[in-house]
């Protein structure tokens, strides 16, 4: 009836796991209680949970990402504490628990923190940037969100019911086979990946269709803002790379549950085939994470240097080339597998080649800053920290691309330092920069700069303290994922790394305070103009927050930096007479229905409750069929309401007088050209 689900699944095996479970359950209950107590359930349901507005969906993605960032960071803190203590002792985490933590840390940070974060930013910004009313398939967009949330839910619930995988975030067989991992941990890992992977694939399809089919009139390919370009390339990578994750996960699941022999030690299985298939997804995945962040940096560096982006064309070509080459380097993740000198050399060379377009980009950003009027606000701080830190990580990557070097450094903490040195500045700093940069567009007020700067310095200092020692430790021979060790030379470095993690913790606390302080002082930080940074692209050509319909009318796009051109000509806030009624898709419950069914399906597959899993699958198919008979409903916003909103915003934008004495104010030199009404 309940498969292998018994009361043994509860985490009574360890007090720390019990505390984790209590925090997870308590956190969930707390949120529900707050929602019920403030009576905002109906509001949440109508305006957020069932909304098909790309902007709200984007914000909900970012909320998921921030929650999962906290969870993933607690894992990191626990690992750093364990390794700082566990010299000639067991530390405080038993090996099995330590292994669960490093597995969940990687899985969460990549798939349930970084992926939702970038999907949220693209969802919010990209349709505005290309002058679209919404993404191509708004209802599908909502379903994707809930599939991602269902995957995240599976990881979270593994802390309470059962255990998580101990096989690392890459889940290599044969260790992840039933023979060595008989529990439910690996199954949680597989089904969380597969369920959220389906959602991500659908998102990729949605974004590509939007960018290809819904650009504003006149926005040709070489006029597309760079963030939209990176969104397109990342989406193409998603559509072509995620099938590999699905295949790898499905084959491992068949091995584990149905006795197949894809990767087993016996029966002719081939464990190395898993590494190949997984990294055919895994390497493009790195660029899926990093490309959108490159897009964020490109927008910020141009806006806050008050200059056009340097060599826009080369940045576009570099982005496309990176997307293509992303599929040619996967084998460098396992040079030591022994594919032979010629194969390793070929992949070593492709790995070095992909550094070239990345280098081109770094120079383009530097040249954009050169002789610009740089405003050192927090988005710019993150960008500059990225430029320096990412370059260091890139150089250690070129080192690792030499197979001979890789043989000595493979699976050491040098590698751990390298990939954190790529994805923390290269992806996470970019997402933070985008979060600060587009926050006023989403909510109508900016984030507090002082706390933002504090958060920035704690994060950057913490990053260097936490990961530079790991480079040294790797060269000293320390392998990754050690629960304890007996080399006294290592301990000082590990203590420094733990201090770094504490500094990052301070950074996270500063970010929480920043959010709270900014909400409290939202009148002081309010943005009535819709253009708080004196920016260049179309997403700022709307009120903050933008109305549900984004744009009442659009100008003809005549070049890159469409909004900047409008401001230059003094046409940005000119009244528009021909505003018409607009129809928008209405809310949908489909997201929650599919998300819930997918979650229960995943949970039942983990615990071998096959009858219920089959029932869920049947319900999904039935719902799909039934909804093919429904006519999608739309609501019409009357023309006078649209016109009223337009007039209010444009009047406020022309006035724009709140920012006297604020360095942001230099946009008023542009506004002076606006003819008086």
């Amino acid at each position: 009836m309940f498969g292998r689900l018994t009361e043994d699944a509860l985490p009574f095996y360890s007090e720390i796991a019990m505390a984790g479970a209590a925090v997870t359950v308590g956190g969930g209950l707390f949120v529900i209680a707050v929602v019920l107590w403030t009576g905002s359930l109906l509001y949440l349901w109508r305006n957020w949970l069932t909304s098909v507005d790309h902007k709200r969906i984007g914000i909900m993605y970012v909320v998921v990402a921030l929650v999962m960032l906290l969870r993933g960071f607690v894992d990191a803190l626990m690992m750093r504490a364990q390794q700082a203590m566990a010299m000639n002792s067991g530390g405080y985490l038993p090996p099995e628990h330590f292994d669960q933590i490093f597995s969940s840390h990687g899985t969460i940070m990549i798939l349930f923190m970084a992926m939702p974060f970038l999907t949220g930013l693209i969802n919010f910004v990209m349709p505005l940037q290309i002058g679209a009313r919404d993404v191509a398939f708004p209802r599908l967009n909502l379903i994707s969100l809930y599939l991602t949330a269902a995957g995240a839910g599976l990881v979270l619930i593994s802390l309470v019911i059962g255990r998580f995988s101990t096989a690392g975030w890459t889940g290599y067989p044969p260790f992840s086979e039933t023979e060595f991992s008989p529990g439910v941990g690996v199954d949680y890992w597989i089904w969380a990946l597969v369920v959220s992977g389906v959602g991500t694939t659908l998102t990729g399809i949605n974004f590509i269709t939007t960018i290809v089919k819904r650009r504003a009139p006149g926005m040709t390919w070489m006029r597309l803002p760079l963030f939209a370009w990176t969104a397109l390339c990342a989406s193409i990578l998603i559509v072509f790379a995620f099938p590999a994750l699905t295949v790898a996960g499905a084959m491992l699941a068949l091995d584990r549950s149905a006795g197949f022999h894809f990767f087993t030690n016996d029966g002719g299985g081939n464990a190395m085939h898993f590494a190949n298939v997984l990294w055919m997804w895994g390497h493009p995945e790195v660029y899926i994470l990093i490309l959108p962040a490159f897009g964020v940096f490109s927008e910020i560096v141009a806006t806050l240097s008050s200059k056009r982006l340097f060599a826009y064309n080369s940045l576009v070509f570099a982005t496309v080339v990176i997307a293509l080459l992303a599929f040619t380097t996967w084998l460098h993740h396992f040079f030591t597998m022994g594919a032979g000198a010629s194969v390793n050399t070929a992949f070593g060379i492709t790995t070095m080649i992909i550094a070239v377009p990345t280098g081109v980009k770094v120079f383009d950003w530097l040249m954009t800053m050169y002789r610009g009027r740089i405003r050192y606000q927090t988005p710019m701080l993150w960008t500059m920290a990225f430029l320096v830190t990412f370059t260091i990580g890139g150089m250690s990557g070129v080192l690792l691309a030499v197979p001979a070097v890789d043989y000595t450094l493979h699976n050491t903490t040098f590698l751990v330092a390298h990939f954190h040195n790529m994805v923390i500045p290269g992806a996470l700093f970019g997402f933070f920069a985008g979060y600060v940069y587009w926050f006023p567009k989403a909510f109508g007020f900016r984030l507090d700069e002082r706390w933002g700067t504090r958060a920035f310095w704690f994060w950057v200092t913490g990053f260097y303290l936490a990961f530079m020692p790991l480079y040294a430790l790797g060269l000293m021979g320390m392998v990754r994922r050690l629960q304890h060790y007996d080399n006294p030379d290592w301990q000082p470095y590990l203590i420094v790394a733990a201090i770094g993690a504490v500094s990052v913790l301070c950074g996270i606390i500063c970010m929480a305070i920043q959010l709270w302080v900014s909400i409290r002082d939202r009148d002081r930080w309010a943005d009535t103009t819709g253009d708080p940074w004196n920016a260049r692209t179309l997403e700022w050509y709307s009120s903050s927050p933008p109305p549900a319909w984004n744009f009442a009318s659009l100008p003809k796009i005549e070049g890159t930096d469409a909004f900047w051109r409008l401001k230059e000509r003094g046409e940005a806030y000119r009244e528009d007479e021909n505003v018409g009624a607009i129809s928008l898709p209405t809310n949908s419950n489909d997201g929650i229905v599919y998300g819930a069914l997918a979650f229960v399906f995943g949970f039942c597959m983990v615990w071998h409750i096959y009858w219920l899993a089959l029932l869920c699958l049947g319900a999904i198919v039935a719902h799909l069929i039934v909804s093919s008979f429904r006519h999608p409903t739309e609501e019409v916003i009357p023309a006078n309401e649209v016109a009223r909103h337009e007039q209010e915003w444009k009047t406020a934008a022309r006035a724009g007088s709140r920012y006297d004495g604020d360095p942001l104010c230099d946009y008023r030199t542009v506004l002076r050209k606006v003819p008086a009404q």
Partner: protein
Amino acid sequence: MSEVDAKTFDESEERAYGFWLFLMSDAILFSLLFATYAIMVTATDNGPDRTEIFGYWRTAANTALLLCSSLTMGLASIAIREDRKSTAFQWIFVTMILALAFLVLEIQEFAGLFAQGAGPDRSGFLSAYFTLVGTHGAHVTVGLIWMAVLCVHLALRPIGPVIQSITERLTMFWHLVGIVWIGIYSMVYLPGLYQ
């Protein structure tokens, strides 16, 4: 599509475009299963290899059935485009019969393999074989359900943009299923039969 307004036309086109992208993603999935089969074909673990288990006539019949069904599906889509409902019903019905016959033969083949102890848990080779061909069979099943749904749509309402959009995507899907089968026939069955 004379009476269809521009917005509905754009939406249908976007749906078709998005579905093309999905099919490309699906094709990658199959290409990985093909690659897996190619590297596991020798991993027989002293069990049956590919020269011993495939039936000549059954696979030839399967190929004929599926290719014919691609033709009849095409004829059905032409009938729908020309607003000839009863002809469309007939061709979809024929397509469903052909697809059903294909599935029956495939299930027979799988059952026969299980009976002689050559199930997917026997060896890596058989795991790869069952996964590749089984995933294709699952696609045929999805197509069959989809055709049934299309029939209900046809019975309930006049041919309009909704039915045309569904038919367009179903036809694309069905041709992909046919193309993948050609790959399976020439990479899995023929090398086994003629060795």
